[in-house]
C-alpha cells in the first residue's frame, strides 16, 4: 500500500484526486492462480499498447507521421485493456482522440494502425483519417473522434439497435475527463437511462485535459456522482490495478447487457504531454514523477514477476512486433491523389467534380 498512500498525500498536495469507490481496495495484489493467468494476458495487452504508443512517438521523431497531433495513451493502458476485456464479439464502441490503445486492445492490426498514423494508403482509412480517426468497423469500432465528446451519443443509437434486435451486445463510449464538461454527455446518459439501453460510458480520467487539470475544469470531481444523478450506475475505479478495472467493467457490462446502463471513471495519469509537441510546462516535475509512478503496467509486471513469471521474452517479442509496424508504415505508399474524391458519398454515386475539372470546362470556352 506504500506507493498508494504516498500517492494519496501527493493528491492532497497537488490537488489531484483520491480515487473513490472500489479504488481503495484496488491495490491489493492478485492471489489466485486464475487471476494470475488473467493478469498475464492483461499484462501482454497492456505491454502491446505501451510499446505501440512508444513507436508512435518514434514515428513522429523520425518525421514519418502525418502531423504532430498524436495523443499517446501511455499510463492509461489499464483502462483500455481492463474495459475491453469485459467486451464481447458484436459489442460496439466509440473512442476519442487518445484511443490507439483501446482500438489495439479490441484486436486492431498495429501495422495498419501505424500506417494510418503515417497517412499511408495501407492504413485503416487509406490515409484519410489519421491518428484521431482510425477505426475498423469490422471490429465494432464506430469511430475515433477528434471532437471532444463527439463520439458519445453514437453509443445511444448503437444501444437502441442492439436492444431492438436483441443481440445482447453493448455499446461502449470511451472518452476523457475533459469530455465530462461537454453537455452532450448528459443528454446521452439521460437517454440511456430513460430507454434502459445496453450502454456503458467510460471516462478515462488521466487528470488532465490539455493544460487543464480536472479540478481546474470542475468543482465536482467525483465524476460518477453525475451519472448517478441521471439514473445510471456510476463508479470510479483506480486504474493502477488492471484486474480491478476489468472486474468493475465486467460487472457494469453485465448490468448494461440487461438494460442497466452504467458509467465508469478510471483514475489514471497522462504520463506525457497532450500531443507530441507539448512538454507539459503547466505541471510540476514532482507531480509527473508521482503520476508516472502510478504505472498499471509496472504494477502488473511486479505482481507477475513476484509469482515467478519471466516476462523478458514476451516483452522482446512485442517490441519486435511493434518495430515492424514502423517499417511497414514507412514502406507504404502515399494514397493516390485520385482517391481524394472517393468516399464522400456512397460508391454508386458520382464523385464530386474536382475544381480543376470545373475550371477546365469553364476556361475551355472560345
Amino acid at each position: 500500500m506504500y506507493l498508494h498512500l504516498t500517492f494519496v498525500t501527493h493528491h492532497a498536495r497537488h490537488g489531484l484526486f483520491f480515487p473513490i469507490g472500489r479504488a481503495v481496495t484496488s491495490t491489493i495484489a492478485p492471489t489466485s492462480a486464475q487471476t494470475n493467468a488473467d493478469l498475464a494476458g492483461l499484462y501482454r495487452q497492456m505491454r502491446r499498447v505501451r510499446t505501440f504508443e512508444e513507436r508512435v512517438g518514434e514515428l513522429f521523431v523520425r518525421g514519418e507521421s502525418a502531423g504532430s497531433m498524436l495523443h499517446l495513451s501511455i499510463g492509461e493502458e489499464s483502462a483500455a485493456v481492463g474495459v475491453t476485456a469485459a467486451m464481447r464479439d458484436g459489442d460496439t464502441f466509440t473512442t476519442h482522440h487518445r484511443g490507439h490503445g483501446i482500438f489495439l486492445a479490441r484486436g486492431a492490426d498495429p501495422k495498419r494502425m501505424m500506417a494510418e498514423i503515417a497517412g499511408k494508403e495501407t492504413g485503416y482509412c487509406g490515409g484519410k483519417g489519421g491518428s484521431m480517426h482510425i477505426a475498423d468497423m469490422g471490429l465494432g469500432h464506430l469511430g475515433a473522434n477528434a471532437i471532444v465528446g463527439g463520439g458519445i451519443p453514437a453509443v445511444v443509437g448503437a444501444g437502441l439497435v442492439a436492444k431492438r434486435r436483441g443481440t445482447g451486445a453493448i455499446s461502449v463510449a470511451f472518452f476523457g475527463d475533459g469530455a465530462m464538461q461537454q453537455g452532450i454527455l448528459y443528454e446521452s446518459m439521460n437517454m440511456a437511462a430513460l430507454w434502459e439501453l445496453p450502454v456503458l460510458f467510460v471516462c478515462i480520467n488521466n487528470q488532465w485535459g490539455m493544460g487543464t487539470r480536472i479540478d481546474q475544469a470542475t468543482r465536482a470531481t467525483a465524476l460518477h456522482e453525475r451519472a448517478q444523478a441521471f439514473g445510471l450506475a456510476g463508479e470510479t475505479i483506480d486504474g493502477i490495478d488492471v484486474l480491478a478495472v476489468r472486474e468493475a467493467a465486467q460487472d457494469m457490462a453485465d448490468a448494461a447487457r440487461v438494460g442497466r446502463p452504467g458509467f465508469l471513471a478510471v483514475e489514471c495519469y497522462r504520463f506525457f504531454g497532450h500531443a507530441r509537441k507539448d512538454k507539459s510546462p503547466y505541471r510540476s516535475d514532482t507531480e509527473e514523477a508521482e503520476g508516472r509512478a502510478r504505472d498499471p503496467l509496472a504494477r502488473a509486471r511486479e505482481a507477475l514477476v513476484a509469482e515467478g513469471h519471466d516476462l523478458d521474452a514476451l516483452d522482446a517479442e512485442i517490441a519486435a512486433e511493434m518495430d515492424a509496424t514502423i517499417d511497414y508504415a514507412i514502406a507504404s505508399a502515399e494514397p493516390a491523389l485520385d482517391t481524394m474524391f472517393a468516399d464522400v458519398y456512397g460508391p454508386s454515386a458520382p464523385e464530386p467534380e474536382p475544381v480543376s475539372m470545373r475550371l477546365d470546362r469553364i476556361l475551355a470556352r472560345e
Partner: protein
Amino acid sequence: MAGLEKLSYRDALRRALADAMREDEDVFVIGEEVGRYGGAYGVTKGLIEEFGADRLLDTPISEPAIVGAAVGAAMAGMRPVAELMYVDFLGMTMDQLCNQAAKIRYMFGGQIGVPMVLRTQGGTGRSAGAQHSQSLEAYVMHTPGLRLAMPATVHDAYHLLRQSLRQPDPVVFIEHKGLYATEAEVDLSRPAPDWGRAAILREGEDLAIVSYSRQVHHALAAAEALSQRGVEASVIDLRTLNPLDFETVRAAVEIVGRAMVVSEGPMTAGVAAELAARISEECFDYLEDPVVRVAGEDIPISVSVALERASVPTAELVLRTAQRLVA
C-alpha cells in the same frame, strides 16, 4: 395506392413514412413529440398506433444527442429518421451533423456510411419569430457529405422522402411549414423523377426560373401571369440541392439566355448565390442579361405579420422582377 386522390403535403409525408416503415423493419423515427403527440405539425400523427413507441421514439429535448443517436443507429445498421421540430435548431446539432454524419464515410476511408434522414421544416408564415422561421438550407448545401432534399409539391413530399430513405448517405430533408396544408390531386403510383433530377414544371422561350421548396409556387404563379402577357417562362424545381441537377438548369438557360433564381433563404452566401454563380460561369456565353437573384433579405425574421411577409420573396416580387428582366 394507384389512382388519383386528394392529398395534402402533410398527408403525403405521413404516407411516405408509413410505407417505408412497412417495407423496412429498420426504418424508425426518433425525435421530439413524434409519437404520442404526432409531430408539432401533425406529420407523424397516428403512426404510433400502427408502429408502436419503439419505432416512433419520443425523445427528451436534446437535439445534439438526437442527431448523434441517429448517427450511431445508422452506423449500427438501422435507418433512422431523426426529426428536428424546426430547422432553426440545426445550430445545436451541426457538430453531429457536419463533423460526424457528413464525414464518417470519408474519414474512415469508406468503411461505412451513415444512411439516416434528418427531417425538419423551415420557412416563414406563422409569425413564429426570428428563431422559428428561418431557411437554413445553405449551411447544409455547403457541407460536403450531406444530401439535401426540399420538396415543393405533394407528389414530391411522398416520393422525395421515399427516395431519401433509400440513400446510402445522410439526407437532410427540409419541409416548408407553409406547405403542410396545401392539397393536390395526385396519383402516387405515378413515378417521380429519379433522385437527384430536377423537374421541369413549365417550358418557355423567354426566361428560365430556377427554384425549390415553397418558392416554386411563386415562380409558377409568376410564369402563369407572364404567359397572359405573352411571355413564356420555364420553371425548374430543383427538388434536391445535393445532388444538384445542373445539367437540366444549363439546358434550359442555354435555350432562353436569361435566368432568375428564387430562394427563401437569406441572399448573401446562400443557395441563390451558388445557383447564380454556377449559371453565370457555365452559361456565360449564352446569357443576355445578368442572372438575377430573388432571395430572402439579409435580416432576421420578425414576428410582425407585415414585417415577416416582407422579409422573404413574395409572389408579387417574383413576378415584378421577371417582368422587368424580360422587358
